[in-house]
């Protein structure tokens, strides 16, 4: 079996996940790690899949669902090296404040400067239309340690007037 990363995007409506996964199952694919979510009225699917023959056959299997639900599909073959899950996150950064341009860019630039590796990032605009707030949660690995994360983000609190929390992400095996 070879592996590929499948991306599917379509206007949100019930039945997208069912149609896509049923087509993949019928084509003999198996689903690995997946992340699926509603974003701005659209529904996005990202998943690793293992397929038996060639990617063309996968695309063909998806064709009926793609046409019926007006989906956009993208398939990227994965090398076995890239398919590795990587290590678990050890740090969580929470950011919130009045919504204004550049928050994500400045926070992530600071994190990148100390080699922080983002494993996942979720954010949402919230609050009232007159006073929108922005909330973001980043989980990742901090090779330079949690103190370095705190230090590099500290100046942003004032400069961007946002609240930033840096928390160790301990995993307990019980």
């Amino acid at each position, binding site marked *: 079996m070879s592996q590929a990363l499948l991306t599917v995007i379509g206007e949100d409506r019930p039945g997208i996940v069912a149609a896509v996964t049923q087509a993949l199952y019928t084509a003999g694919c198996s689903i690995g790690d997946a992340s699926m979510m509603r974003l701005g009225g659209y529904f996005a699917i990202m998943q690793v899949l293992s397929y038996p023959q060639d990617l063309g056959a996968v695309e063909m299997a998806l064709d009926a669902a793609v046409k019926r639900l007006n989906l956009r599909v993208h398939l990227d073959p994965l090398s076995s090296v890239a398919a590795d899950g990587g290590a678990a996150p050890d740090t969580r950064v929470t950011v919130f404040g009045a919504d204004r341009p550049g928050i994500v860019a400045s926070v992530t630039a600071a994190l990148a400067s100390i080699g922080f590796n983002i494993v996942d990032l979720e954010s949402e605009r919230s609050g009232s239309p007159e006073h929108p707030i922005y909330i973001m949660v980043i989980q990742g690995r901090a090779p330079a340690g949690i103190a370095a994360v705190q230090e590099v983000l500290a100046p942003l609190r004032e400069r961007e007037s946002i609240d930033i929390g840096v928390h160790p992400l301990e995993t*307990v095996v019980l």
Partner: protein
Amino acid sequence: MAVLPILTYPDPLLQRPAVAVANFDAELRAFVDDLIETMRAGPGGVGIAAPQVGRLQRIVVVDVRAKLGDDCHGLMVLVNPDLIAWEGVAVGREGCMSVPDFTGNVIRAEQIRVQAQDIHGEDRVYECAGFEARAVQHEMDHLDGLLFLDRLVSRKTDLFRRKVYKR
């Protein structure tokens, strides 16, 4: 003393409720010694429940000194434990020796009071908080055939829950 093999999901024994311990005899003490040794040999080394080694009895061992030092109860052997009070909730990432290579976020009570019998059958009451409380709750779930997989929450769920409730 022996390190016992640990059952892993989907072994059906992990999802069966355990029965109360009635006999506090030498056999029980020998088993608990093995259970403690098995816990210490494991990857986490801070907690274990009897059903994880295939014995469907209500026995839990927790010792979080490796994590918290002396700021905890040390070695706790909880026989027939009962959660009698709890307060507050916290999200934390858990893994389980019986579910290798997977970790996920789980909501647990922050402070708990547990009534249990010790290895000799004497009644004891423990108050636990934070990490120790999380470990006790995780292990007590095993006695009811529950895995932390039954309690997973998504990051989005706990972060944005209030907003959803408002609607």
